[in-house]
């Protein structure tokens, strides 16, 4: 065990810090969940790409830097230290990118990865359907083979980024006779294809970050299928593993929130309850614990190990931590918690963050599903319904 950074790692940190201090927007961007904010965030993706900081863990041949996981953690720490915006390209960097690298043909890699790295094409995910949320194997949207094309008909929903993004990915039923996990195929599609209707869904805060997608005989070339017809479930499971695993939420994000929470506490110390003070201290401890665990998992992966069902523990931990930190902030703010803008005109980021934190235990596999996975695959308890 060596918990110190090498001189090279320290130099790398200094390099990231210098770039971020120069380039991170001084004012927080407008929320990603509206046209204006989306455009600002895409512009930021292109700024990141201009410094080659967009996809730091990707191999250089696909437009990345080929960094190892410790360097990635250092990058993320500095990114959040500098107050870097949320990533419009999240679905590409951590979900689809690694999936294409694992399952894609050389042609697919060359076609899709570099524009993703340059921030030119922003991707939306299209997993859920009205009848297939936590139970993703209940998917019904069909893709029927017709010559060199699939013809897609059906509906997807809760599709993150889809209100404004360029391309989407999801799984579709290519074998009409199939049931559950079989007969599904992973397909990439241009969101501007004829036959696709996007209906933005107004979220509880009033903005429209995700959307419903209606497919009416949408023709998609067969070469947009990943890993072959009928392999969709396996590909989707690998993708979901990337999402829940190490990289969806790096610790820097929560350590930055914990730091802001300490500052908020200090500014409101006189009116704060002892319970809120303890919650602030607890938040710092939990954010640190999450960071230590991530460093430990990164070291394990770098030594050739894999992250499996432990990813569910991560997802439960960070999502419930994030909600707890923002709940504490709302308590500390007291009457001001309800203000969308404070008296000085600044946006109440704690309120926005609290509302967003409520989605954390739901998206990327609800925490109830994660607890089932933990109980069944890590602890070895019998599956639900097994007699």
């Amino acid at each position, binding site marked *: 065990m060596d918990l110190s950074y090498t001189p090279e790692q320290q130099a790398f940190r200094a390099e990231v810090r210098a770039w971020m201090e120069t380039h991170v927007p001084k004012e927080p961007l407008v929320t990603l969940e509206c046209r204006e904010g989306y455009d600002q965030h895409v512009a930021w993706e292109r700024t990141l790409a201009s410094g080659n900081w967009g996809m730091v863990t990707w191999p250089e041949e696909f437009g990345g830097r080929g960094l190892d996981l410790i360097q990635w953690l250092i990058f993320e720490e500095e990114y959040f230290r500098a107050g870097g915006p949320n990533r419009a390209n999240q679905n590409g960097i951590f979900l689809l990118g690694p999936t294409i690298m694992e399952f894609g043909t050389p042609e697919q890699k060359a076609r899709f990865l570099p524009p993703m790295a340059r921030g030119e094409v922003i991707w939306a995910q299209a997993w859920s359907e009205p009848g297939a949320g936590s139970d993703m194997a209940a998917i019904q949207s069909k893709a029927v083979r017709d010559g060199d094309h699939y013809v897609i008909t059906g509906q997807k929903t809760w599709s993150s980024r889809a209100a404004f993004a360029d391309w989407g990915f999801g799984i579709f039923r290519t074998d009409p006779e199939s049931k559950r996990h079989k007969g599904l195929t992973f397909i990439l599609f241009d969101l501007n294809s004829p036959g696709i209707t996007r209906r933005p869904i107004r979220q509880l805060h009033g903005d429209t970050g995700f959307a419903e997608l209606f497919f009416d005989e949408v023709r998609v070339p067969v070469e947009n299928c990943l890993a072959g017809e009928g392999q969709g479930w396996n590909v989707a499971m690998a993708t979901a593993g990337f999402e829940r695993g190490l990289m969806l939420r790096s610790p820097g994000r929560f350590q*930055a929130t914990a730091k802001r929470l300490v500052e908020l506490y200090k500014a409101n110390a006189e009116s704060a309850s002892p319970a809120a003070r303890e919650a602030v201290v607890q938040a710092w*401890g939990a954010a640190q614990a999450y960071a230590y665990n991530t460093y430990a998992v990164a070291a394990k992966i770098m030594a050739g190990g894999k992250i499996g069902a432990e990813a569910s523990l991560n997802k*439960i931990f960070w999502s419930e931590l994030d909600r707890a930190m923002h709940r504490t902030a709302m308590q500390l703010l007291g009457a001001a918690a309800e203000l969308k803008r404070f008296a000085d005109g600044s946006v109440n980021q704690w309120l926005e963050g609290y509302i967003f934190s409520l989605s954390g235990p739901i998206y990327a596999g609800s925490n109830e599903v994660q607890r089932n996975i933990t109980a069944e695959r890590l602890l*070895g308890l019998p599956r639900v319904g097994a007699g």
Partner: protein
Amino acid sequence: MDFRFSDDQLTLAESVRDYLAGTHGPEVLRRLDAEGNRDPAIWQGLADMGLTGLLVPEAQGGLGMGLVEAALIAAECGRACLAEPLVDSALVGVPWLVARGQTDGLDEVVAGTRRITVPHPINPWLADSEGAALTSVDPLRNLAVAEATEADDLLLNVGALMSAAQLVGLADAMLTQAVEYAKVRTQFGQPVGAFQGLKHQLASCSVAIEFAKPVVWRAAQALEDGLASACVHVSHAKLAASDAAMLTAETAIQVHGAMGYTYEVDLHFWMKRSWALCGAWGSRAFHYRRVEEALLGGAQPIGPEHTFA
């Protein structure tokens, strides 16, 4: 930067785990409880394994290991609910003496003929100490009043760290016991462990334990490296490990149902040790305040760039 144990460290921990699993099962705890709590043969076995000399310098015949190895072994002692005072003596008393240069007579410690229990004002009583006897809820803890004059911080930190390490081992063992019971106990025509009401509680224990462990290992390395911030990391570890152990103890008894309330089920030995260690070497309030003061007072740098610095 490499947050992993070495293969040697893992092999050592595994060999201790196997040894204790083979020689120190629940039936031994029951026998000890019935027959006076201590058994010289168990102690001699630990000495023969080299564990009494784990932290004794090689010049005095020990293995000369450090606090990271010691924390790993303490966790195994917790997992086995070891009653003998190996942790207090070999993993807390010895490193404190070594740090002070008091290495005379450590060869007797290695041989198993001498035990060291060092009092500290934060502990009004200690297991296997010399004073007037007290009765602990933990039937295997030979508790006695301990008078201390010196409030040494290193001693306190090592004691708290090793308590935290034992607590994660205890929590692991309690979770395993609850899971094994939930697999075999059937009601309504299925194992009770198939019910999500139990699964989700047990999964929450798993989360608490798995995120307490790296805090304990980080504290061990910080203390081994002599970092000025080590006291904050030790207190953080004691809090995280205590909370994980208390949650797991309460969940484990709930999962066992009425059986969990009996002497017949093994769980109570681990649960009672957890209660005892949560308050030993600094209460939750003591350790919470140490973290709070460092954090809110500004001594502990915070933010994403300060994971390890």
